[in-house]
């Protein structure tokens, strides 16, 4: 923590920093952002990546706006017939393993592999079709180059097929409050009890 009352920045930069801090607080939403404000990001944080996203309501946000509390993150595409509905079910069942209080503190972010077809309306259609609670769920899209970067950083493989489908790694990834990978599970056919325990532990650590 930088001691208050002294600053390494000249006045001009302080003004710029204050503006940035205000923008950051508005985007991050209150307490969560305040808890991490000023601390440098860990070198292994996913939030080192600058990815502009658009959610199912057409609202833009930066990936690192999610800093401040743990996050469940995965990638999917909406026209997928088999593995992706299973990913959604696995996430819902994983959430069901938490108490309501815990659940409200682990938002879910799913980013599409397929920005060409998954426009805002298609994302909204998935929210409605799967009855996803938008208090915790966000479906999002970005441009193809950033899809590739986000997947690369998450060690998710994917490949567009000629028929419009994608081959892809199906994985649920848990980030800690600073965006470090706390754990992941490839089990999407059933709840992974080890992963649920990890979620509870990561939440408990975020309280400290």
């Amino acid at each position, binding site marked *: 923590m930088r001691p208050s009352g002294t600053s390494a920045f000249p*006045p*001009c930069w302080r*003004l*710029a920093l204050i503006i940035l801090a205000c923008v950051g607080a508005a985007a991050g939403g209150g307490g969560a952002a305040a808890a991490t404000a000023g601390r440098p*990001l860990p*070198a*292994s*944080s*996913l939030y*080192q*990546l600058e990815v502009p996203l658009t959610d199912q309501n057409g609202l833009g946000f930066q990936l690192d706006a999610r800093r401040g509390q743990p996050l469940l993150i995965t990638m999917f595409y909406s026209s*997928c017939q*088999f*593995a*992706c509905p299973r990913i959604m079910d696995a996430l819902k069942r994983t959430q069901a393993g938490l108490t309501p209080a815990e659940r409200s503190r682990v938002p879910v972010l799913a980013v599409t592999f397929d920005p060409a077809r998954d426009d805002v309306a298609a994302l909204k259609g998935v929210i409605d079709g799967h009855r996803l609670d938008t208090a915790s769920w966000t479906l999002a899209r970005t441009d193809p*180059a950033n899809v*590739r*970067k986000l*997947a*690369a*950083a998450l*060690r*998710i*493989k*994917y*490949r*567009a*097929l*000629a*028929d419009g*489908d*994608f*081959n*892809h*790694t*199906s*994985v649920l990834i848990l980030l800690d409050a600073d965006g470090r990978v706390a754990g992941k599970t*490839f*089990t*999407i*056919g*059933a709840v992974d009890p080890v992963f649920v325990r990890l979620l509870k532990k990561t939440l408990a650590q975020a309280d400290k």
Partner: protein
Amino acid sequence: MQAAGQCGRRLAALALATAALAVAPRGDAAEYAAIPAGSLASVLAGDADAGPARIDAFAMRTRPVTNAEFLAFVTGERKWRRARVPAIFADGSYLNRWRGPTALGENAKTDQPVVSVSWFAAQAFCEAEGGRLPTWQEWEYVAAADATHRDARSDPAWRARILAWYSHPSGALLQPVGGEPNTYGVRDMHGLVWEWVDDFNSLLVSVDSRDQGDPDKLQFCGAGAISLKDRDNYAVLMRVALLSSLGAADTTNNLGFRCVRPGAGENK
């Protein structure tokens, strides 16, 4: 108010200076060769099953990126220096042949290809040059050529010549860039270093197709993973196997890169 105005002007000047840096030419401009559109029968069965892939015209760097060129890049872009790059973008051996963060030294000659670079760093270099890494198919398309043919892959002599390189120990001294050009005027596609591709993480190679049957182990949506079709083309298949095993922050001492620019007519 006056202070704020001054501040605004200084910030604006800084922004302009930064923009100028970003587009400033770095010594000799990189040479790109025009690659005409065409079709490719990929060694990857998943692609071949759908028929030959259509490749749009693009321009490709005629040589892999050198140490000197990468040094110019990190000199302008502090965040990609060895001491500063976050671990999520490059591992601990990033640029480890260099003497220092902005110094090459004995083990990294100016005209040798840069190696020990991560995918993220390679992609950032190409973006700064107005391009990107080639896709696997673009790389494979150009790598299929010999000095006179666009697709020399069925020539046993060509295959043997390329395969001979892969039997050299990887610790041997790297040659400078600038080998014999292929029919497009592109050099060093084989025989010098391995190269990153844009979609390295699309290469879902399954070592055992039996993994695909168990739904609880299912990792890949849609059709199964690629199986390697053209088993005689070991040289190219080894590249697929290497790339499919890497993470985007990984670096190795024989893995470099080159860039492409989309579209035709960008030869310069």
